[in-house]
């Protein structure tokens, strides 16, 4: 092992390979996911998920191979072992199979526990009067920060495991004899092939094929939204029935007419009473004056 390799912790080594490998694979996986969506298959449900996972295998092997070779040459100054991508991939899959269920269990239990504790804290008499928005934010911060810390620890734990796997490969690698510039050129050529026009032609052809497939699969009208993302149904306005509407209007007009007539009659009766009162009032005044 070289000096650089022995200076690197397992977590750092794991991160140096896993992080670029993840991002190298992402753009290709999203393209596949989009094509599945255009075909009406959801990549997180069967059979779309199986299709995506299956296609992810060669992509992940290639991405791991590329990023591991780069780390070996550029940072560790080591000649990468043959088939490093495949070796790292199957060992990482083994680690996933063992670690992921445990990590899921720990994280879900932590979230449930932290939520329960936060809920109990808010049952205290002192905090019961706290308004809903404040309560939500404080509760979320309480259980969210615990869950985030545990999640971070789990990620570090996985990186530690993966770093050890990479470390095993580092232990078998022999130091690179070439000068640094030659090593840089070597890992640079992993990405930029000597025959660049060929690469551009292949990329353009792939791009055109993907675009044609995308437009061929895409529905012309709105696809039915996934049940998880369905918006509230639009309320349908009652349809207009002309005969009923006319009858209703006639009734309303007739009622209004009756009401107006009643009001007029009341007003007339009121004015007669007022006249009578005025006359009796004048008579009373005269008799008082006499």
């Amino acid at each position, binding site marked *: 092992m070289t000096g650089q390799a022995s200076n690197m912790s397992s977590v750092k080594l794991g991160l140096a390979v896993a992080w670029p490998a993840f991002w190298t694979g992402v753009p290709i996986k*999203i*393209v596949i996911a*989009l094509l599945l969506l255009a075909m009406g298959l959801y990549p997180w449900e069967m059979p779309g998920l199986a299709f995506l996972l299956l296609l992810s295998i060669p992509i992940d092997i290639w991405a791991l191979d590329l990023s591991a070779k780069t780390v070996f040459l550029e940072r560790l100054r080591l000649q990468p072992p043959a088939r490093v991508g495949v070796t790292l991939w199957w060992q990482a899959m083994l680690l996933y199979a063992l670690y992921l269920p445990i990590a899921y269990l720990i994280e879900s239990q932590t979230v449930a526990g932290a939520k329960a504790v936060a809920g109990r804290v808010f049952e205290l008499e002192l905090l019961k009067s706290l308004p809903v*928005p404040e309560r*939500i*934010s404080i509760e*979320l911060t309480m259980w969210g920060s615990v869950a985030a810390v545990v999640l971070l620890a789990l990620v570090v734990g996985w990186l530690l495991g993966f770093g050890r796997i990479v470390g095993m490969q580092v232990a078998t690698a022999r130091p690179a004899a070439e000068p640094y510039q030659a090593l840089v050129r070597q890992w640079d050529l992993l990405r930029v092939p000597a025959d660049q026009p060929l690469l551009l032609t292949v990329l353009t052809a792939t791009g055109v094929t993907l675009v044609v497939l995308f437009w061929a699969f*895409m529905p012309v009208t*709105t*696809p039915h939204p996934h049940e998880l993302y369905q918006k509230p149904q639009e309320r349908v306005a009652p349809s207009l029935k002309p005969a009923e509407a006319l009858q209703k209007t006639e009734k309303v007009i007739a009622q209004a007419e009756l009401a107006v007539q009643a009001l007029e009659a009341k007003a007339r009766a009121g004015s007669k009473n007022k006249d009578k009162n005025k006359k009796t009032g004048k008579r009373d005044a005269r008799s008082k004056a006499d």
Partner: protein
Amino acid sequence: MNGQPSVLEKVFAFVDERVGLKTLQAKMLNEPVPGGSRWAYVFGSCLLFIFILQAVTGILLMFYYVPSADHAYASTQYIIHEVDYGWFILSYHFWGSSAMVVMVFAHMSQVFLWGAYKKPREMVWLVGLALFGLVMAFGFTGYLLPWDQRAYWATTVGVEIMDKTPVLGDFIARFLKGGPTPGQMTLSRFFVIHVMILPAALMGLAGLHLFLFRKAGPAGPFRGSTEELKAKTDFFFPRQVWKDIVAMAAVFVTICSLAFIEPVVLLEEATPDPGDYHPEPEWYFLFLFQMLRLKIFAGEFGQFLAGVAIPNAFLLLLAALPFIDRSPERNIFKRPIALIGWIVVMAGILIFTVSAIINREFLD
């Protein structure tokens, strides 16, 4: 091969002689990138790419959209249900606006964490902040255009928040609404601002941003000795261009996927009666909306504080940042206040946004 130039080469030579294409090409592509190309530098290019596609999809939508209170809703429904691929163009435009906000946050975060706002790049930072304001304004004005309940009430809430600004608030609110309640005048004004004023302003400011950036030059990584950076320095073409293209493709595909997963579905047509609908703004303003719900910000003054004073004070602080933080140190791990500040702001935005989503359950 007879050694004679082809027709295409002749045309190129003709234009080059008059315009100077080769010089332009050299200027555009041969920009030195200190420390070499990086994935961290792709956000700016992605923003430009998203904006161009927003303009293209926006123009396509304008072929069918009618900006009147009587027809806006019906024409949007027509785009969704009748026009071939109309649902996709509209949904892409809708998710593209969210992507633009996310990318602005990513770009600003990268510049902040890399310390790239420091001397001599203060002007680039200031123009960038103005562009951030324009992106938010794009989102706000575009939200009203479908003229459904969500659009109507999000705008009502937004304008009410603006109304809380002292002195100018009343004028801004009246200017935007064009009447006591949102109506035809509001829609016309928002449409004009969205499709005429903001794009022109954005194009001008983006050009200025790029000019100032090229004038000052890229900041490069915050770690590494001068010799190391010099040894790794590369030109913009081809490596950074390749990274930019891959990132743009990934952004494009992500927006398309979102359009498929959750295509735009309108609520009922806008009415001045919210009915069962609980008004709320677009997701990137949710944190602010949730802050306004806190008891500490109750009342006229409290609402002004949370809705206007704090956000504007924060923006002013960002504008003053290159003049306050004069230390040449760019390494974020040696700038603890900046790092903690960034984490606190991001965590605050995240907590309040998620809180606003949880809060919906208590309203129904």
